[in-house]
């Protein structure tokens, strides 16, 4: 790999990320499995940086998991999304930020489809009116919450307490980044760095002192597969894909994994536990797993949040090896205190 060449290409794949005034929508999966990540995201942008991120209690799921599991028709998905856009319009916002990659892909897909098929947009407007007497404007800008953290990465570093550096050796930590398929595989121009050289997480990891590993299966799916995980009979698909990724990354000795999509950290975390239970195999040093994080959790660690306020006790694969490498001060006894 010619690193310099890649950096040059990356720099050409930038997207417009507004500075402020966002309508914020949550992620079903993140709220279930990594709830504190959304908490810390809003705490950083609102309370630490004084930005305007508005949330209405009336927003709902976008329906994305049901859609990609083929449980709801396309018109249903589009009308639920149209309702979210209506809530944004009613609140007086134009910039839309979501906390989920599945949603992000869906918003991009819907706006693109409406652009190509205006009669479908008109039909959905009619269906939304029929169902809820609402009208909407299409957002001027749709970004994923990680785009915002990416944009703020240097500010986070400047206010940071820790860096992604091994305290003992002074070496950058070795980071695997996993951006999630729907971030840019469908609409490469919508993601920072496109589909070939996605830079959203790499930019964070590098700014915060880490070095990113380029391993063969870097872009392979985490293994979610929607129905391939949700139905127990199909889960062999899910764990096999995760297994493939771990086998591919292990020789590069990663210290940590940073993820973009709310689902991926769940699978990369939990399937490591299952692989260990089934085969006795672990992928990190000292017979331990490789700790897996959301990007908000990593931003929180850099900024000096307490690991248990970040919800790291909700991970199955222990995070302590990474905390210790960085030299983060934390209280072991507090981990499961509730």
């Amino acid at each position: 790999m010619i690193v310099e060449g890649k950096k040059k290409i990356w720099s050409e794949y930038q997207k417009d990320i507004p500075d402020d005034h966002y309508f914020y929508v949550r992620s079903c999966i993140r709220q279930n499995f990594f709830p504190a990540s959304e908490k810390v995201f809003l705490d950083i942008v609102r309370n630490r940086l004084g930005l305007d991120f508005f949330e209405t209690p009336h927003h709902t799921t976008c329906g994305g998991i049901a859609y990609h599991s083929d449980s709801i028709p396309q018109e249903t998905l589009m009308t639920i999304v149209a309702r979210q856009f209506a809530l944004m319009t009613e609140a007086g916002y134009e910039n839309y930020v979501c906390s989920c990659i599945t949603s992000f892909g869906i918003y991009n897909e819907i706006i693109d489809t409406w652009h190509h098929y205006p009669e479908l947009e008109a039909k959905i407007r009619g269906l939304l009116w029929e169902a809820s007497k609402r009208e909407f404007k299409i957002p001027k800008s749709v970004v994923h919450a990680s785009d915002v953290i990416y944009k703020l990465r240097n500010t986070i570093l400047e206010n940071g307490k820790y860096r992604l550096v091994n305290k003992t050796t002074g070496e950058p930590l070795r980071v695997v980044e996993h951006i999630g398929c729907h971030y840019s595989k469908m609409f490469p121009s919508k993601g920072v760095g496109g589909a070939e050289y996605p830079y959203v997480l790499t930019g964070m990891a590098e700014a915060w002192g880490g070095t990113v590993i380029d391993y063969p299966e870097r872009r392979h799916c985490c293994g979610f597969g929607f129905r391939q995980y949700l139905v127990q009979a199909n889960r062999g698909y899910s764990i096999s894909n995760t297994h493939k990724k771990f086998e591919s990354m292990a020789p590069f000795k990663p210290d940590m994994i940073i993820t973009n999509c709310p689902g991926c950290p769940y699978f990369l975390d939990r399937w490591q536990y299952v692989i260990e239970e089934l085969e006795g195999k672990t992928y990190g040093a000292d017979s331990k797993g490789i700790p897996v994080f959301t990007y908000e959790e990593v931003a929180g660690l850099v900024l000096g949040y307490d690991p248990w306020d970040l919800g790291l006790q909700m991970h199955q694969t222990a995070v302590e090896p990474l905390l210790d490498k960085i030299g983060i001060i934390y209280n072991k006894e507090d981990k499961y205190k509730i």
Partner: protein
Amino acid sequence: MLYDRLMEDYRFKEGLNACINCGTCTAICPAAEFYKYDPRIITDTVQSKDEAEIEKLLRSETIWYCGQCMSCITRCPRKNGPGLIIQALRNLSQELGYFIDSEKGRQQLVLNRALCGNILNYGYCVYPRTFHHSDHPESGPVGKWIEDNLEAVHKRVGSNLDGEGPGILRKIPQSDLDELKRIFDVTGATERMEKIETISRERAKDLGLSDEEYCRQVFTINSEEHYI
């Protein structure tokens, strides 16, 4: 004509341009590594407009193997989207009731109940009170600890579980859930759910199984025929 029915689906229109049978999609496809599955053949079959072959597909296990990662879209040199074509095929298979002819297709019943149930009852696709450790042992001892201490754990990390106002896992007001129900009604989701329920119930009856036994089978049975 089945091809014309597929053409009514915008995903099909977007997903099928002209396939040159290069096989790039198959090379990148995670489902093709795991299952007896080949997106190139599926794309070629639908573009052949062979009605009998399309019907076979609609009744097959094959269309249910895709994981919807959309890696094929990035790679196809002709801008086809086998993952989109699959969505259109699955949609039509359910519309026509053909999903009942395959083991993987029959899983739509449990998916619909779980996902549409969560959306209509809570406003979320996934909801912690319906995500049971017993159905998800892979969530590990930590998953069990979370389930056993759900409210306390969520409170500790700052969720607003079932609370008023905004926040993580807040209770979504009934008026918003009513709107979602109306959206389901006017966009065909309710009708779709009822269709899958009716056809599945008939199948369960034919097999002499209770609803619970049928669902358990559909959720857990995985025959060897799916693999190469």
